[in-house]
């Protein structure tokens, strides 16, 4: 993705600074996702391995080689995206950090897409919802690429894609909660266990999950429907704020459940918190000028 440097030497305007801040937060999430992926799959097989070995009948050695190669690529991509998060960039004077960041985001997006396809083919538990549930992980990095553009139109396109990704993620997770995904039931039981309170029955937890599902859908609705009214901005920002908090809580719940072994699972889900937070920055208003004005 090339960016244009049409106004070299100009001080970055406040709107650009908000976009850069948003990009840094989003990039941090994707870098953490890459780290989690590497940690997880250096100790376990991925669905990509399973697809190659079991569905496509490749040899175990071939599947492992391809998987290991992908992990090396992810490690490189993560190392490209990390400086973007730590150092930031200048949208109108793209430097090496931006260019490497774009390459890293593309790689992470494609890797997460392959992983999503593999899981959709292999997971027996309502696989039809997996592409949407993981949209923040595969569509998020691709959307973030557009945020690095000097062109406001391209940035708004990226903003729109990111909104779509995070809304899809929350809608699909809401559906999974509504259907009583067993791993979600266990997360609630684990919370009870860790804080030492008397546990609930499975049916109690399933009732709670239905309430969580409704909140997920409501939050997603604030993104998708909020922009049709005059109160679009505040409503959407409250929705995004809630999603960032909830995304953080649900990622952290993996560590609550299994301790240290849950760390990779939590890192993989970092974009569920960072992408909504990043969007809040890109929607910030400065002196009457809104950084982004998306109509969905």
């Amino acid at each position, binding site marked *: 993705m090339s960016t244009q440097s049409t106004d070299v030497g100009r001080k970055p305007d406040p709107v650009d600074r908000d976009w850069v801040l948003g990009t840094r937060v989003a990039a941090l999430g994707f870098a953490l996702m890459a780290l989690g992926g590497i940690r*997880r799959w250096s*100790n*376990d*097989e991925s669905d990509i391995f399973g697809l190659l*070995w*079991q*569905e496509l009948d490749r040899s*175990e050695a071939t599947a492992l080689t391809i998987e290991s190669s992908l992990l090396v690529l992810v490690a490189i991509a993560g190392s490209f995206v990390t400086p973007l998060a730590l150092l930031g960039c200048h949208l109108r004077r793209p430097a090496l950090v931006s260019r490497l960041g774009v390459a890293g985001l593309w790689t992470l*997006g*494609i890797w997460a*897409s392959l992983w*999503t*396809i593999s899981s*959709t*083919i292999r*997971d*027996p*538990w309502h696989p039809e919802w997996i*592409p949407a549930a993981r949209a923040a992980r595969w*569509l998020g990095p*691709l959307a973030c690429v*557009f945020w690095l553009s000097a062109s406001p*139109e*391209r940035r708004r*396109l990226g903003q729109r*894609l990111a909104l779509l990704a995070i809304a899809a993620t929350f809608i699909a997770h809401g559906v999974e909660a509504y259907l009583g995904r*067993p*791993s979600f*039931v*266990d997360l609630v*039981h*684990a919370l009870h*266990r860790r804080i030492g309170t008397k*546990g*609930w*029955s*499975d049916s109690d*937890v399933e009732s709670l999950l239905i309430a969580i599902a409704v909140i997920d859908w409501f939050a997603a609705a604030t993104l998708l429907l909020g922009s049709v009214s005059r109160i679009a901005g505040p409503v959407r920002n409250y929705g995004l704020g809630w999603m960032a908090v909830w995304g953080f809580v649900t990622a952290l719940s993996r560590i609550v*459940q*299994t*301790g240290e*072994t*849950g760390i990779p699972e939590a890192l993989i889900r970092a974009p569920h918190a960072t992408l909504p937070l990043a969007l809040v920055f890109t929607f910030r208003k400065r002196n009457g000028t809104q950084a982004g004005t998306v109509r969905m």
Partner: protein
Amino acid sequence: MAAQLRIPIALATLLATGLFLFACKRGEPTELRFSGLDPAHVRVIWTESPQSEALIAWSTAEVGSEHRVYFDREPHNGRLDEYAESRPTTRDGIFTRTTRTDAEQPTVHYHHLELEGLAPSTTYWLVVASDRHVSREFHFTTAPDDDRPFRLLSGSDSRSRPDRRRTMNRLIADQVEKSDAIVAFLHGGDYVYHGHEIAEMAQWLSDWEMTIPQSGRLLPIVPTRGNHEGSSVVYDEAFGWPGDGQSYFATDLGPNLGLVTLNTESAAEGDQLEFLRTTLGTMQTKAFRIAQYHQALYPAVKKPHPAREVWVPEFERQRLDLAMESDGHALKRTVPILEDKQDDKGVVYIGEGGYGVNQRATRSHWYLEEPGFAASQIHLWQLTVTPERLTMEAFNEQGETLDRGERATRGS
């Protein structure tokens, strides 16, 4: 704007096309090995009380109007009017079509009879009849309620190499014919690749018929739900909703052995953990306590299932002797483990899936080092249970012993 969307649209199209082509590849019509109302897939399923109860199940290609089991304590070679008892099925239905290849799924009807009031260690001879179509005569033996020695076969992951599972099934038939001491087969889950697809399950059930020796002896199955069954209703229809549809239950195999079957595909904590606690508590008078479940807690290949956090402390507190695990596609026997250390007072974990799948390279773990064992070999396990000893022996497709372990009773 359209130009800017080119790449995301191309990626989305690629994703959709890949999924579509994959779905098409799997959608090949399947031919059943039976037709009309000829009874097929005749099998016995054990869950809670195999000394007095058994589920008799079979399949037909057409619906029929009356389905009955004729049974007695002596053989009658299929002469219906000579059997002491006949009972109508308690549940009939059609295997549910839930997958995207619905159009290619065959129509298969299931028929279940929950037999109750049976006598322990007793052989029952039976035929099943769908209208006027009567099966050959089979027989099975109920579980013991005394301390006589007996054997169990155990295996799992029979899903992606049907050729090898058929070889194993022939070997099972040989062993069953030779040894009356073998009383049941414990299946650790992942019967077929796509557990929601009737065609694959029907194929598995047809292959299971190969375990029936010339004499017509049926080896009861104690089923476990695997991740490839997931939440599949086809699994419940094949095995009669084990554990009232929860897929976790306790099996009483007399004073020598208590077996707990757990379900790693549903919530591990909450109700199931409470069940595990209560059940193991009631098994303290047994000479041995064993468990079977699908995804491994001390794996040889993959990462541990999160249930390890809550199940292992309960296993250790209530002195479980042996846990049978699956899913990894390897052969393993751990050292006895207590509080994550080798300790003779701990639990031995064996497995983990070699009935009909390609085997994986095992990873290096302290719990698999000598006197533990790990290898990549197709296998089944045989457990021999006496009041004093529980012996586990892994064997390959030729019946050759691959590994052997033993546990002495720790008493009540």
